[in-house]
């Protein structure tokens, strides 16, 4: 069974959420059996996630019963959701009860969630396809990452090994489980038989801390920006004796904040574990062992157990000497099958065969620790969330009659448009579509975009 969930003590609590709901491992398995009776054949469903017990129960039941969930945020923009539904034809939606409309039929209910048929004709699915995630959660790009069952099992096993996850662990799952890193926390700790603390709250809410403290959370996993907030909240002075691990992924932390986390861990006897990953590698691919956090500041460390990392040149030859920058390649059982951009792609098999070119430009030191120096692919990580630059251009161009080019770094996206009058409107529009705070977007007026003879935008000139 998925994550061997039926091998855990059935009376142990698997899920607790900040709405006051909980479920044991026995409840999860029992619900999956009921859920399975509705699905005689493998099919696709959309899970509109809000990080509650109800949402996780639907996800787990689907995984156990080999129904493929496409995980999306419950707060996702309605038009983008419609686009994804039209593209991939899910047979059912698993969504919060309060999102069910009067004319919709509910075929199953659990913990505030309902299963609603769409009436759409499903596409044929590849036998080993287990799960679909978006590459760019916020922009709702129709491009999806196709996972196999082994991807998720291997990832859960390997991550719980290097985090030394135990039955008495209680990790905070406040990153959304429709996001690869949030899902990986849930999977790896359930594999260990632990109790996942699910919440949609964030650390500026008093209830977040109440939830964390009442349940005595043992692990925090989040993006660099989260630790910026924690620093501001004087987290590093808080007394949280039950906390064992703080871990970070989803982008590069500033050296200063990194050292602060490392020092906090050292002083309080906890572990600070920076990690590196992406959706295409079912979340984590590298981690820096806690004991190296000090001396290897800013490094993403080495490959996770059962994985391999190396660098290649432009001509794809492998770089063997240290301190040379090249594109990082990862090999391991957690490398996903490939992408889907349309319904017909859901039947595709494994296109990567365990090898992933990460698109990150990286160097390795003499001790075999890797350091990210740049990025090849056209996306940014704004507040830790991946936002595609080309997708943003398309969103803007389809709503406004403008020429548009997006560039920038992980601090800020710079958007160039040829309409001075609409700068403010476009800024508000892209912030609302991507669900990213508008301070991340810097608007620029440009009369004409720089292009080469073939008409391609010269991003380096912006």
């Amino acid at each position, binding site marked *: 069974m998925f994550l061997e969930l039926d091998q855990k003590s059935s009376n142990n609590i698997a899920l607790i959420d900040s709405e006051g709901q909980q479920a044991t491992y026995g409840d999860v398995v029992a619900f999956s059996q009921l859920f399975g009776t509705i699905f005689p054949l493998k099919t696709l469903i959309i899970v509109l996630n809000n990080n509650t017990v109800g949402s996780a129960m639907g996800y787990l039941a689907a995984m156990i019963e080999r129904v493929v969930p496409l995980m999306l945020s419950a707060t996702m923009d309605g038009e983008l959701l419609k686009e994804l539904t039209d593209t991939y034809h899910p047979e059912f939606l698993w969504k919060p009860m309060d999102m069910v409309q009067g004319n919709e039929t509910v075929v199953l209910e659990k913990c505030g969630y309902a299963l609603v048929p769409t009436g759409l004709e499903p596409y044929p699915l590849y036998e080993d396809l287990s799960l679909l995630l978006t590459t760019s959660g916020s922009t709702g790009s129709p491009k999806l990452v196709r996972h196999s069952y082994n991807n998720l099992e291997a990832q859960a096993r390997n991550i719980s090994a290097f985090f030394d996850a135990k039955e008495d662990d209680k990790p905070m799952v406040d990153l959304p489980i429709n996001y690869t890193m949030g899902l990986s926390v849930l999977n790896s700790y359930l594999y260990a038989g632990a109790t996942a603390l699910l919440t949609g709250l*964030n*650390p*500026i*809410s*008093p209830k977040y*801390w109440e939830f964390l403290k009442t349940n005595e959370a043992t692990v925090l996993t989040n993006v660099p*920006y989260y630790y*910026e*907030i924690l620093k*501001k*909240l*004087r987290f590093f002075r808080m007394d949280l004796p039950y906390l064992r691990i703080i871990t970070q992924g989803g982008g590069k932390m500033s050296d200063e904040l990194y050292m602060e986390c490392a020092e906090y861990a050292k002083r309080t006897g906890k572990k600070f574990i920076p990690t590196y990953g992406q959706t295409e590698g079912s979340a984590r691919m590298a981690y820096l062992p806690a004991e190296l956090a000090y001396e290897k500041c800013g490094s993403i460390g080495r490959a996770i157990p059962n994985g391999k990392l190396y660098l290649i040149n432009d001509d794809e030859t492998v770089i063997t000497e240290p301190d040379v920058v090249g594109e990082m390649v990862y090999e391991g059982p957690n490398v996903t099958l490939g992408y889907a951009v349309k319904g017909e792609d859901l039947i595709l098999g494994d296109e990567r065969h365990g090898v992933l070119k990460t698109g990150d430009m990286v160097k390795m030191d003499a001790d075999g620790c890797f350091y990210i120096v740049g990025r090849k692919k056209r996306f940014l990580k704004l*507040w830790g969330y991946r936002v595609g630059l080309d997708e943003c251009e398309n969103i803007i161009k389809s709503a406004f009659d403008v020429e548009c080019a997006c560039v920038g770094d992980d601090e800020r996206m710079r958007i160039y448009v040829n309409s001075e009058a609409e700068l*403010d409107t476009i800024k*508000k529009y892209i*912030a*609302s579509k991507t669900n990213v*705070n*508008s*301070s*991340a977007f810097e608007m620029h007026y440009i009369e004409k975009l720089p292009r080469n003879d073939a008409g391609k935008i010269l991003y380096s000139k912006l």
Partner: protein
Amino acid sequence: MKNCEKYRNIFIERFSLEEDFDVKKIKRYDVTDWDSVGHMMLITALEDSFDMMFEMEDILAFDTYENGIEILKKYGIEM
């Protein structure tokens, strides 16, 4: 500039509101940009502007325009 004016301007600027916007009624999450990112920026802007530092409890409790005024008064800032 009076403190209450300074306070109001920070909201207008931080959350890109219209000059004549009725800020008095706004709550956290009512305004799109007042999310966790926007909140930390607001807190930093207020700390810089009033030369003070909020305690954690106050950063968490600060969730409306009105109660922000009460919180600032606790730090001896006349509003």
